[in-house]
């Protein structure tokens, strides 16, 4: 085979490329002719759901993305916000769900690598990683293996690169049995004046490839299995992408070194659809054309075809446009870091992506047809039917119920996970995993970045709009609970098949709720990612719009943690507990039902209560604070007692049944603990501000004691169950 374009384009081949008949007609119209094989491959990846956002674009446009502190919203590699003092925080979250199910270690590792590149591409030094994980039920035969592999992969990559992994979330639910979710987030810091973008400019300027060599990794599986390749099929089978964190580390250092000079006009990482999407994006954003000479692409394997080079997803590669004459200087930097560097093309004024290979033109595509002409669908959808409110019963043994929840898969400590992540490297981790939000000091200052990822898929399933609101509100609350001001979010929208009306309805509903919460909380969306078709045998995952929030605190010495600080602290509940047990963890795990309405998210109340709590921390009245979420009051008290190594004695009134007090998941609530005088002062201030406030009791003793022994959890037993569940579960790993 000379260049692959000998291959006939048949209807089957078009179909194998995931293109519909109408889409193929659209390609022919855009080109004014039939595409050749290389071009077909390029269209197929650019018009894929992943690159074109064809099912989601219409709805994403409705999300609020602006605020005075937003420097760059969605549309670039990552979002950028101003954090004051001339500095910017740059962050994004991304999914690597499917690859992680196939090969958990490499799938998760390359997910981390990809999101790191999105962030340092923009000129940021990555300073924190987060990971939001959803696995199937614990007793599913694959779950244990997947947990072990994913955690090892995230650690294997992040630890080696030397960026601390400071937090995340981990859930188990049967809906993920066949589709786990691995969402990784990176936060970086840059000089607000030195942000790098991907828009190419300057006809004639060199297009430069740096990083690892290109192999046949991750090329679209269905296509490669086509009959034309049977001669040497084993050699050409698509392969799993293997991450090389060592090369990534070198790439970060080399890129940052080059970015300190004035040589770069535009830069873009090669992520999904590799060389294709990076060159198309750079050229089309800049309104120019690209001519690439594929013979110059550094290649790891022999006899690679243009199609393969353009579609390869080999990791740890970047594309740049340099100012003319700066090639040698740039090359010296990359050679110092022992990385490949090659000029592979130049900018043209043709508005086309032109590909040369062995002296021939093997592809010539009008760029705007790849982006602007890409299909956009207004997929039919139906709103999720409103559920009936239900009354959730009390079980006989509330002690056991609390113990089972706190010592079970959903609420147990994630220590087994985060101890496999280097969460301290870089020397600025001020709040380690285990609290409400991670806090990373802005290097060399007293400021801190607070980061949290959250979503409660149960709620999103029960009521997508409320669930969407809740996900945003929970990150806001977690960031508030450490004393930081939440500024903006990124997201990773994981859903089932959008061609099903009910799934599309979940998507639309969640986005509506998210948008509403962002507006009410002044908390815009600056970046994100969509992962659809998370579905096996027609059964979709719970709708899972994972939200990653970032906030800033001005003084890390004014920070709260969840740990009680010894005996004698007064414990105060801010916010109102209602009988909201629908779609709660208690209902699902203890009662064994999933029905009713999820808790209502009143965004005005959320904001009022949160602003009140943040002020308490900022002015030093409170250094112990925890928000209430899954598992309600009893779970929060337990977290605080276990973290502080001291018990607590509380009393709740009889306006609600005891099990509702304990397990209700009413929103906008926080627990704070402080000395008695300050607590009294806080009670008064809250009353004056019209904020519901309850003095619950005092810390001390070695148990969590509610209403004089109506519920009494021995701290030692609780801690051993809470800390023990995950390691015991994983110890049975093979």
């Amino acid at each position, binding site marked *: 085979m000379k260049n692959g374009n000998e291959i006939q384009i048949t209807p089957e081949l078009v179909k194998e490329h995931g293109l519909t008949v109408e889409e193929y007609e659209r390609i022919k119209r855009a080109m004014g002719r039939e595409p050749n094989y290389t071009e077909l491959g390029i269209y197929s990846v650019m018009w894929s759901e992943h690159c074109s956002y064809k099912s989601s674009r219409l709805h994403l446009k409705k999300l609020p993305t602006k605020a005075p502190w937003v420097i760059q919203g969605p549309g670039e590699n990552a979002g950028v916000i101003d954090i004051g003092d001339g500095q910017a925080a740059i962050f994004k979250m991304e999914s690597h769900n499917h690859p992680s199910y*196939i*090969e958990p*270690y*490499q799938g998760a590792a390359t997910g981390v690598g990809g999101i790191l590149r999105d962030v340092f591409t923009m000129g940021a030094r990555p300073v924190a990683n987060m990971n939001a994980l959803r696995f199937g039920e614990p007793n599913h035969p694959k779950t244990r293996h997947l947990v072990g592999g994913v955690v090892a992969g995230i650690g294997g990559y992040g630890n080696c690169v030397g960026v601390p992994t400071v937090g995340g979330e981990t859930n188990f639910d049967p809906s993920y049995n066949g589709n786990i979710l691995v969402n990784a987030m990176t936060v970086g810091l840059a000089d607000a004046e030195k942000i790098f973008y991907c828009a190419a400019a300057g006809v004639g300027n060199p297009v430069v490839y740096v990083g*690892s060599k290109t*192999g*046949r*990794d991750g090329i679209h599986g269905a296509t490669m299995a086509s009959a034309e390749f049977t001669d040497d099929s*084993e*050699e*050409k*089978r698509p*392969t*799993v*992408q*293997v*991450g*090389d964190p*060592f*090369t990534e580390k070198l790439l970060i250092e080399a890129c940052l070194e080059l970015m300190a000079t004035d040589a770069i006009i535009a830069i873009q990482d090669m992520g999904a659809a590799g060389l294709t999407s990076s060159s198309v994006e750079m050229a089309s954003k800049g309104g120019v054309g690209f001519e690439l000479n594929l013979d110059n692409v550094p290649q*790891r*394997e022999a006899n690679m075809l243009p199609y393969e080079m353009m579609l390869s997803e*080999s*990791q740890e590669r970047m594309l740049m446009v340099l100012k003319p004459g700066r090639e040698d200087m740039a090359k010296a930097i990359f050679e110092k870091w*022992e990385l490949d560097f090659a000029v592979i093309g130049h900018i043209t004024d043709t508005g086309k992506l032109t590909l040369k290979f062995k002296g021939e033109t093997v592809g010539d595509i009008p760029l705007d047809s790849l982006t602007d002409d890409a299909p956009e669908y207004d997929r039919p959808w139906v709103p999720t039917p409103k559920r009936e409110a239900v009354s959730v019963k009390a079980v006989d043994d509330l002690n056991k119920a609390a113990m089972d929840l706190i010592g079970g898969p959903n609420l147990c400590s994630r220590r087994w996970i985060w101890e496999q992540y280097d969460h301290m490297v870089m020397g600025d981790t001020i709040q380690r995993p285990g609290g409400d939000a991670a806090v990373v000091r802005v290097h060399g200052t007293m400021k801190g970045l607070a980061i949290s990822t959250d979503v409660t898929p149960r709620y999103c399933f029960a009521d997508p709009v409320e669930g969407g609101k809740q996900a945003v509100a929970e990150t806001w609350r977690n960031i508030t609970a450490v004393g930081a001001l939440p500024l903006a979010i990124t997201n990773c929208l994981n859903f089932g098949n959008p061609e099903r009306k009910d799934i599309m309805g979940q998507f639309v509903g969640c986005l509506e709720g998210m948008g509403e919460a962002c507006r009410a909380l002044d908390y815009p969306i600056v970046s994100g990612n969509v992962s659809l078709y998370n579905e096996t045998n027609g059964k979709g995952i719970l709708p899972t719009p994972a939200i990653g929030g970032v906030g800033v605190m001005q003084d890390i010495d004014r920070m709260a943690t969840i740990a009680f600080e010894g005996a004698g602290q007064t414990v105060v509940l801010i916010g109102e507990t209602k009988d909201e047990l629908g779609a709660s963890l208690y209902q699902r795990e203890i009662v064994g039902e999933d029905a009713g309405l999820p808790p209502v998210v009143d965004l005005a109340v959320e904001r009022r209560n949160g602003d009140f709590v943040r002020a308490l921390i900022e002015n030093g009245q409170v250094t112990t604070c925890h928000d209430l979420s899954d598992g309600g009051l009893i779970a929060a008290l337990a977290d605080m007692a276990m973290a502080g190594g001291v018990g607590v004695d509380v009393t709740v009134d009889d306006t609600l049944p005891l099990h509702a007090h304990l397990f209700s998941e009413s929103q906008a609530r926080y627990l704070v603990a402080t000395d008695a005088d300050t607590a009294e002062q806080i009670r008064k201030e809250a009353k004056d501000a019209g904020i519901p406030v309850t003095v619950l009791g005092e810390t001390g003793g070695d148990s969590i004691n509610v209403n004089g022994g109506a519920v009494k959890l021995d701290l030692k037993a609780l801690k051993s169950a809470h800390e023990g569940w995950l390691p015991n579960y994983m110890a049975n790993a*093979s």
Partner: protein
Amino acid sequence: MKARIHVTLKNGVLDPQGKAIEHALSNMGFDGVNEARQGKFIELELSETDRAKAEASVDEMCRKLLANTVIENYSIELE
């Protein structure tokens, strides 16, 4: 009976360790190493005395644990 198992990366799968070894050897002045690949070598001491049974059992061990067949090949020798 002893089983000697070689686990190697499939062709086309990136081998970062091999690459690093190539690099280090050339930095140390060893020329003429065109490629390095690193794999695993596992030796098992088995109670089984029946060759066929041992072979079948080790093959199962490889598929289930010792090799990651998504990216690795394995080969077994008994002695």
